[in-house]
């Protein structure tokens, strides 16, 4: 009788190769989920259409902002991709609840792989909803006024911003442990924030006595966003990976 004391499968190579391979496997799983659970995609598509139409058609007249559609679209883009990033939170909470993370933790895989796959899934969902929003925006009169490269750069910054926010939500999902809570909590936080910000209404429009804001962040929006992206990634990627390696379903 030969005793089985050696593992049946050895490591597939360097830690980096393993990381890339595991991350790709997890990403594919999340892409299949988008295909298999079409509700996700339907709401991903309907929500931005609803917001673009509501704000551009219902509010535009009352806004007293010249060319409101072009002002609005930037805000809608940002709001929609941020909401798209909450999928990571709900999915991680669900995996934790189902005991799937317990199983992952007994497998010889990179601890970042599942998170990479999940956040990549959000990125794909957000890219699709960006396309839908652009189409809807174009119908109601939104036009690109910058150069082609400026336009691509803007799209890139938006997607990167939503990607880094996915990591924040993934950490939150593993912390609150309930998919329902993460959906409600993120809505409670994100919805007021988008209204307080200048996403839908220019700041000096909400209160005429308020002096025209001159904050550095408002004058350097692109740099501000990039700083935000870097800060979120540097802080929340390691935190989320560490949480994944230590979190337990009970």
């Amino acid at each position, binding site marked *: 009788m030969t005793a089985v004391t050696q593992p049946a499968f050895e490591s597939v190579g360097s830690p980096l190769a393993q990381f890339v391979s595991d991350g790709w496997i997890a990403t594919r799983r999340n892409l299949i989920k988008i295909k298999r659970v079409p509700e996700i995609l339907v709401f991903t598509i309907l929500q931005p259409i609803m917001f673009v139409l509501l704000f551009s058609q219902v509010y535009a007249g009352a806004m007293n902002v010249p060319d409101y559609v072009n002002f609005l679209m930037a805000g809608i883009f940002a709001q929609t991709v941020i909401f798209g990033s909450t999928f990571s939170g709900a999915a991680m909470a669900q995996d934790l609840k189902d005991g799937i993370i317990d199983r992952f933790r007994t*497998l010889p895989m990179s601890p970042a792989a599942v998170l990479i796959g999940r956040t990549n899934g959000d990125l794909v969902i957000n890219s699709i909803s960006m396309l839908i929003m652009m189409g809807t925006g174009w119908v109601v009169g939104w036009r690109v006024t910058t150069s082609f490269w400026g336009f691509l750069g803007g799209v890139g910054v938006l997607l990167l911003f939503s990607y880094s926010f996915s990591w924040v939500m993934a950490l939150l999902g593993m912390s609150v442990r309930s998919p329902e809570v993460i959906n409600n909590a993120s809505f409670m936080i994100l919805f007021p924030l988008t209204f307080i910000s200048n996403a839908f209404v220019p700041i000096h429009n909400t209160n005429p006595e308020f002096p025209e804001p001159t904050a550095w962040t408002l004058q350097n929006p692109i740099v501000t966003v990039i700083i935000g992206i870097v800060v979120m990634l540097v802080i929340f990627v390691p935190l989320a990976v560490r949480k994944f390696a230590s979190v337990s379903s009970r």
Partner: protein
Amino acid sequence: MTAQRAAEPDAVEVSGLMINRGRHRVLTDLSFTLPSGRITGLLGPSGSGKTTLMRAIVGAQRIGGGSVVVLGRAAGHPSLRRRVGYMTQDPSVYPDLTVEANVRYFGAMAGAGRRDAQAAVDAVGLSDLRRRKARDLSGGQFSRVSLACALVARPVLLVLDEPTVGLDPVLRVDLWNRFAALAAEGTTLIISSHVMEEAGRCDSLLLLREGRLLAQLTPQELRRRGATDDLELAFLRLIQAQNAGVAS
């Protein structure tokens, strides 16, 4: 054969294990060793700490005291992840993936390929349903997908939390034959159950009650000590004898 087995190191050594959850003590001062290449049945009423003990062995549970050594390493050591397979109590598979895609997914994370996934699907008797989505399966079929995901990487130590729940008698016998074949090849299995008739298929039993180890014995010893062939009755008598001992 017995001598050869005795020469092998123990698969699991637990000593003085304490686990608390919140203010409750879930496991109290557990100590035992499990030999390699055997089927150990983990039995006890629900709430006796079976799942918690299994989680401690696979390294998914924070322990409050004592030690758990698995295949010569502290439980949860990264090198053990290639050698330990775990089936959780809730079927931890993705409902939107097909049977085979689930097994391939968890297999791929352990370096196992398509052929290994097919072998694991065959092993749990789901060959005909391999292309079916997990959410379209019955409860018993669903949990067998989860079992296949634990088998696919061909681990040296298999920790299975109630793998036969919800299965009909024919399938249950099938799976226990499969477990026996794995043990004969040298795999160590730890299987929890609250069906006492399954205890008869194990090489040795760990009887848990209220977080304490009531006894570690073979099914034959249990029958002898309980003075009955009925394992369930024997277990009950053991508990009553202990209660009487505590009371006097």
